[in-house]
Structure formats: structure tokens, C-alpha cells
């Protein structure tokens, strides 16, 4: 492999991380040349722990395809961001013969000032700088552009992945006028209620909470559109972010017996020192000038009871907030102060999750005594949940979609994000899952 000039070493745009984290699966084409052999890779990226690449290359007139599994590590050091995709377990898809293939590893480094550059690749597990070469291309693939000629570079036509990718390429989003809810047995007149409590004003994390709001709102609006049910939104944010307004909003939810209520909270959370309930207190203060107390704290468990009392078929409650000890006992106060669309999703999978499911999920970002972490892109828990949901309903997943899978995947992904964040403490989401699926 040729030696690279360090002064030309890679930088990659920060937006790379967003597409790699928020879609059901992202598809990329990557090319590089090593020892005069051109390698072309087709990367299917589900999440930081789960990705694979089919690499095609020709040696001595023989065309080979190898599949390499990937895990990713991201982080920050000295004002630079990095992402490393570490390859493992190479398997020959074509005849292996007496060949071997060392898995490739890809490296991006960037900051706000660096220009978009291509990643570097090495097959050296020691990451010796002399072994790194710059890729000749790296592009995201629009699933609609996938065709037989391209796919057959990497897949046999009878492989399940090939068939799923063909299905993805053929998907045409339906318009609301043409969408019909085919689940006539129990799901006629179902409606989705999205309740958003967003602390958009608070100084330290308001920006992150607003990012969470945009992400969650887009996703659930698209889901309701995709499965063809009406959508109603209730938002408590800005200077309306108070306990009184929150309770008033919860009481306004007029849910039918077949409806879906999705509650989402992004803001500060905590627990009283003498609290036994495992779920956190939602801190309903938009201003730090308001003292913390019972008048401003809303237990997630109370929200759960209130929403379940509305009588909807399916209740999904998500809270991305800390569950750490606030350092004081509960006080008995005498005063009371009043995108992307789902083009990568299989609609039948969405219906299984949202129309053919019944019960409640209460899901909170961190265990008792833990913090929930976030950055400018949003909360680790929220990003993980959306990622897990999209992955579960993606074309390239062959399993029957289930809320249990989504919950487990969200937990693992949140744990992983906190683990790879320097200076963060462990974050383990907690939940009560009581959903049955047909």
C-alpha cells in the first residue's frame, strides 16, 4: 500500500455521522486501490454495532466477492471528531479457493474547519500510518437507484439480501389519497396522538431537546402517513413548559379505543433521594429562576397512569432525561405554582408494530442514579430509539418486527453511545413493556 502524505490525511464532514445513525439502513459505495487492484465495496450500515460490506475485486482474471462485518467507534479528541469502522470475520461469497482476505478498516477524522475529504483505509490491525491509503470514492446510494447490474457485482440473485434490496428499489411512496388501512378487523378509525413535552428554552440542553423534537415529530408523522392513519400533535414547549400546562395537555387527549398515543419527553430529569419509583421525575421548568420542587416535578409514572386512563389501544411513552439523584429528598411544599421519509420501511412491518399491537411501553433513558447524555444532535436514547425503530422496519431485516426487539436494540445502542463517549458515565435505559402483538 502506498504511503500517504500526512498533510493530506483525511477529513470527513460531520454530517456523515447523521446519515449513518438515523436511517433504517444506509447504503454506501466505496472504492479504493491497493497493490494495483481496485476494490469496490457496497456498505449496508444499520448502526454502529451492525454493518456489513460486500467487497468486489478481480485478481488474475477471477472476480471475487467477500463480506466483511463492521463495528464503528466514534469520538472526539483535541477538537477533532473521528469515526473508525473496524472490519472483522471476512467470508468469501464467491469461491474462496486458496485465497485469504484481511478485513479492511476505514478511518475518518474531521472538525468544523476541515473540508470534506475521503476516508482512509488500511488492512493493518495495528493501524500503522504507512499502511493507510485514501479511498478513491465514497458515496451514499439512493435505494431507488439500485439496479441489477450494480447489485450483481456483490450478490447472487437468489440471496435474501438481493431480493430485499430489489424490493427497496421498487418501493414507491404512496400518497395519503391512495393509502388505505387494510387492517379492517380491528384497526378502522385508528388515530395517532403524538404528545411532545420539550424543554426547548432551558439554557444547557434546550438546543439538544429541540433537535430531539424535530427528529421524533418527523418520524411519527411519517409513520402515521405510511400506515394511513390520522395524526394529531400536542406540544408543550417554550414558555408553556410547565407542570400545569403538561397536566392540562394530558387531560385533553381524547383517544379512541383503537388509537395510539405516543408520549415523548426531552428535558431535565432527576429522582428524589428518598424515591423508590424506578422511573424519573420530569423537571417541568423552562427557566432556571424557578426553584425545583414538587410543584415543578412530574413523575413519569404519573404521566403513564394518566395516558393509560385515556383508553387507547397502544401507548408508547418515551422519556429522554436523567434519572440521577438530585441530592435532596422530596419536599412537601405548601404552595402550588399553578427528512427522511419511510422509504426504507416495509409498511406491513409498521402496521404490525402500530396497528396490530396492544398495550403499553414506558421507556426511559437511564436507570436510577444515572445521567442521560446528549449532544447537539439530540439525546443518545432518542437517537438510539429512532435508529432501532427504523432498523426494525427496514427491508433488510427479515425477522417479524417486535417492540421487544426495538427496546432491546435501543438499550444496547444507548449503552454503546455512552460507552464510546469520552467522559460520559454508563447509561442504561429502563422500561416496562406490556405490549401484545397479533
Amino acid at each position, binding site marked *: 500500500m502506498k504511503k500517504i502524505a*500526512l*498533510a493530506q*490525511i483525511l477529513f470527513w464532514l460531520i454530517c456523515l455521522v447523521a446519515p449513518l445513525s438515523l436511517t433504517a439502513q444506509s447504503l454506501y459505495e466505496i472504492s479504493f486501490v491497493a497493490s494495483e487492484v481496485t476494490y469496490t465495496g457496497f456498505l449496508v450500515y444499520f448502526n454502529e454495532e451492525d454493518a456489513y460490506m460486500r467487497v468486489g475485486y478481480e485478481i488474475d482474471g477471477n472476480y471475487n466477492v467477500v463480506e466483511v462485518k463492521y463495528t464503528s*467507534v466514534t469520538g*472526539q*479528541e*483535541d*477538537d*477533532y471528531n*473521528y469515526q*473508525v469502522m*473496524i472490519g472483522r470475520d471476512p467470508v468469501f461469497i464467491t469461491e474462496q479457493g486458496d485465497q485469504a482476505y484481511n478485513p479492511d478498516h476505514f*478511518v475518518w*477524522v474531521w472538525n468544523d474547519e*476541515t473540508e470534506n475529504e475521503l476516508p482512509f483505509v488500511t488492512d493493518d490491525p*495495528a*493501524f*500503522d*500510518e504507512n499502511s493507510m491509503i485514501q479511498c478513491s470514492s465514497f458515496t451514499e446510494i439512493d435505494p431507488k437507484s439500485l439496479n441489477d447490474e450494480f447489485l450483481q457485482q456483490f450478490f447472487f440473485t437468489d440471496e435474501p439480501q438481493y431480493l430485499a434490496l430489489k424490493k427497496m428499489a421498487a418501493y414507491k411512496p404512496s400518497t395519503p389519497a391512495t393509502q388505505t388501512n387494510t387492517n379492517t378487523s380491528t384497526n378502522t378509525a385508528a388515530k395517532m396522538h403524538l404528545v411532545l413535552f420539550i424543554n426547548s428554552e432551558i*439554557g*444547557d*440542553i434546550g438546543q*439538544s431537546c429541540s433537535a430531539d423534537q424535530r427528529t421524533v415529530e418527523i418520524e411519527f408523522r411519517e409513520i402515521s402517513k405510511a400506515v394511513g392513519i390520522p395524526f394529531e400533535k400536542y406540544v408543550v414547549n417554550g414558555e408553556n413548559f410547565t407542570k400545569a400546562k403538561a397536566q392540562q395537555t394530558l387531560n385533553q387527549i381524547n383517544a379512541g379505543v383503537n388509537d395510539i398515543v405516543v408520549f415523548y419527553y*426531552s*428535558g*431535565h*430529569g*432527576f429522582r428524589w433521594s428518598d424515591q423508590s419509583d424506578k422511573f424519573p421525575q420530569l*423537571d417541568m*421548568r423552562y427557566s*432556571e*429562576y*424557578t*426553584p*425545583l420542587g414538587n410543584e415543578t416535578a412530574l413523575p413519569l409514572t404519573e404521566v403513564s397512569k394518566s395516558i393509560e386512563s385515556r383508553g387507547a389501544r397502544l401507548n408508547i411513552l418515551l422519556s*429522554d*432525561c*436523567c434519572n*440521577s*439523584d*438530585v*441530592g435532596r429528598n422530596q419536599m412537601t411544599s405548601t404552595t402550588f405554582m399553578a427528512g427522511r421519509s419511510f422509504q426504507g420501511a416495509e409498511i406491513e412491518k409498521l402496521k404490525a408494530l402500530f396497528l396490530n399491537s396492544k398495550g403499553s411501553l414506558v421507556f426511559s*433513558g437511564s436507570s436510577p442514579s444515572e*445521567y*442521560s*447524555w*446528549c*449532544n447537539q444532535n439530540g*439525546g443518545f436514547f432518542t437517537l438510539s430509539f429512532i435508529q432501532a425503530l427504523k432498523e426494525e422496519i427496514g427491508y433488510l431485516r427479515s425477522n417479524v418486527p417486535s417492540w421487544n426487539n426495538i427496546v432491546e436494540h435501543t438499550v444496547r445502542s444507548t449503552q454503546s453511545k455512552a460507552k464510546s*463517549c*469520552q*467522559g*460520559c*458515565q454508563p447509561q442504561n435505559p429502563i422500561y416496562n413493556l406490556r405490549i401484545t402483538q397479533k
Partner: protein
Amino acid sequence: MKWFILLFIMSMFNPEESSHPVFLKHGHIIEKATEIKLSEVSATPVSSADQDPQKVYVQDYEVIREIVLEKDQKALQKTVLDKHNYIDQKKSCPLQAKYALKFTQGEQFITLIVSEDTCAKVIVFSSEADINHQYHDLKEDNTLNSALKESAKK
């Protein structure tokens, strides 16, 4: 993984000392402060209309007691400037103020409102607009909370 490779790569592009992640180019106000004041303050600020004229406030936080700093001033300056105490990511816990630490150099000042260590954060107020009223998270194993606690014991 040999992370030093990456760090080496990054250092090639960062030959000059980067500015402080919190205080940017204004670290000298702390480093060369002519006056340093540490106070224990109320958990939440009080709006100016509600403030008691008999009481003292720092950035709207009521001063509960002044803490006399003796030989620990230099150590505190170093601790506050230690960029390894700060973290880019944010915790979604509510800041409950505990200390106000003010550094003054002539007309310039930097005041840190430091939260209790149950939710380690600081708010920076300053005469310098580009760092004024900024929120920063502290690492869980930061040395600032412990240094302030130690000073407050005396």
C-alpha cells in the same frame, strides 16, 4: 486499537495550541486574576425584581456565605483552566448551583456558577461577550467540584 496513531494524525493538523474550549482566548483573566472570590450560593437564581436589597447576589444567585481563599488560589486557577475537567456532551440533569467563583483582572471578569456534584455543570458569566452566559458540563471525575468542596471546608 492504537489510538495514538489517530492522535498523531490529528496533532499534525493542530500544531498550534488551540484555544481553551470554555474560556477561548480569555483564559488570562483567570490565570492573571488580581482578585478571586469564592461564595456558597443559593441553588436557583432570584430575579432582580425579587431580590432582597439587604442580601448580596452574584449573577442573581444569593450569596449564602463568602469563603476565604488562602493559599489555594493558584491551585484553583489551574483547576478551572484544566480543559480536561470539561466535556462536550451534556447531561440532562437539572443544574443546582452551589458555588460562585469570580476572577477579576482590571475591568474584565469571569464568574463560574458551579452546580452541586450530583449534576456537575457550570455556567460561565463574563465581561467578554463570546464566553458570556455559556453552559458547560463537567466530567464526572472532574477536579473542580472536589477543589471547591475542599476550599469551602476551611
